[in-house]
């Protein structure tokens, strides 16, 4: 079991490779258990552990409970400010998405850990969950009134059909931009980290004056790591925020 450090260090995309940990095939469907699935389970386990640790409901909260209360208020405030009081029925969805993305991103920052959210299909699935809820709830609550979303008010009737066509395209593009944003941030950040770290290693290995110069990529790597932690948090927050903005469209269409 040689990991082959030089190869890993030089190939910045090797970290995104999927490995099958257990084969599972149903018909033509390949449902193998991969490292990505393992990391998803690990993040779920971490969230469950976090909740368990803070389930004592003490009056004076411990560390885990305090963090959980803070994040509850953080997400609840965000949801209420963008959807109003009735948006709180979506709190479980928004908080789950936030917690899952946050833990997946943060766990991805640990060396040799796979980053689930660096695969666009994962982020796209998350975005599609959000859009399905938006469309499903919007149609269930407003009926055909949901279509007001595509029929903006306060626009001359002559260009209204054109603008509503644009609104439709814009609406369809939402899950794509939502998923691409999270994916691109994680993907680009991890490649950047790996590249600079790889430079540092190969420059140091070259010896001589180059080895002295390797301090530059090493310093950049050091500077990038806290930045990546910040991005990991900010992107989870942005995803949850956009989720609640889209949910407010489902609650009150035609409020553009």
């Amino acid at each position, binding site marked *: 079991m040689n990991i082959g450090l030089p190869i890993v260090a030089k190939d910045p995309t090797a970290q995104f490779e999927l490995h099958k940990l257990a084969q599972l095939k149903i018909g033509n469907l390949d449902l193998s258990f991969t490292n990505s699935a393992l990391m998803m389970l690990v993040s779920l386990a971490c969230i469950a552990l976090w909740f368990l640790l803070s389930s004592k409901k003490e009056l004076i909260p411990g560390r885990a409970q305090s963090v959980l209360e803070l994040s509850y208020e953080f997400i609840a405030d965000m949801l209420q400010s963008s959807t109003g009081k009735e948006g709180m029925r979506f709190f479980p969805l928004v908080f789950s998405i936030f917690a899952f993305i946050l833990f997946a991103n943060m766990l991805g920052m640990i060396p040799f850990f796979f980053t689930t959210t660096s695969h666009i299909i994962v982020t796209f699935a998350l975005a599609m969950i959000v859009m399905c809820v938006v469309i499903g709830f919007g149609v269930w609550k407003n009926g055909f009134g949901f279509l007001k979303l595509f029929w903006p008010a306060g626009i001359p009737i002559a260009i209204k059909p054109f603008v509503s066509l644009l609104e439709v395209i814009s609406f369809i*593009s939402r899950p794509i931009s939502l998923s691409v944003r999270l994916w691109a941030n994680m993907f680009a950040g991890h490649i950047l980290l790996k590249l600079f770290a790889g430079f540092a290693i190969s420059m140091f290995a070259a010896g001589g004056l180059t080895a002295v110069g390797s301090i530059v990529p090493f310093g950049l790597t050091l500077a990038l790591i806290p930045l990546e932690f910040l*991005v990991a948090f900010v992107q989870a927050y942005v995803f949850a925020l956009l989720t609640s903005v889209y949910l407010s469209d489902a609650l009150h269409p035609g409020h553009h």
Partner: protein
Amino acid sequence: MTDPEGRAKLHSKPTDIDELGRKLDIINAKRKPDAEPVQASASNMAEGLKYASEFSAAVLVGAALGWGVDKLAGTSPFGLLGGLFLGLCAGIMNVVRAAKEGMDGSGEDLPPDELYEDEDA
């Protein structure tokens, strides 16, 4: 042995509480400029990716819709062309909307606190 002694000394000196206050002031002064440059540069990349994804997603969707119309109606190049044009328009609309909404649309540039509300006004 030293612990009760130290505590006794601490109480006996009248200036100790002032000393502690001064120390706390120094620590507070040190803590204030905290991680602001990092946040700025992090949101720069996130900001760029935000507009890029908003724009390109709309163009992709428009082109895909146009291509689909072509496939269904057999109007070979024109559906794709029209779809691309519509996608461009929708992309620009997305970008303008994202820039206008700013904080409620994306939020990476500001924390959601009421602390910053006065900046908007």
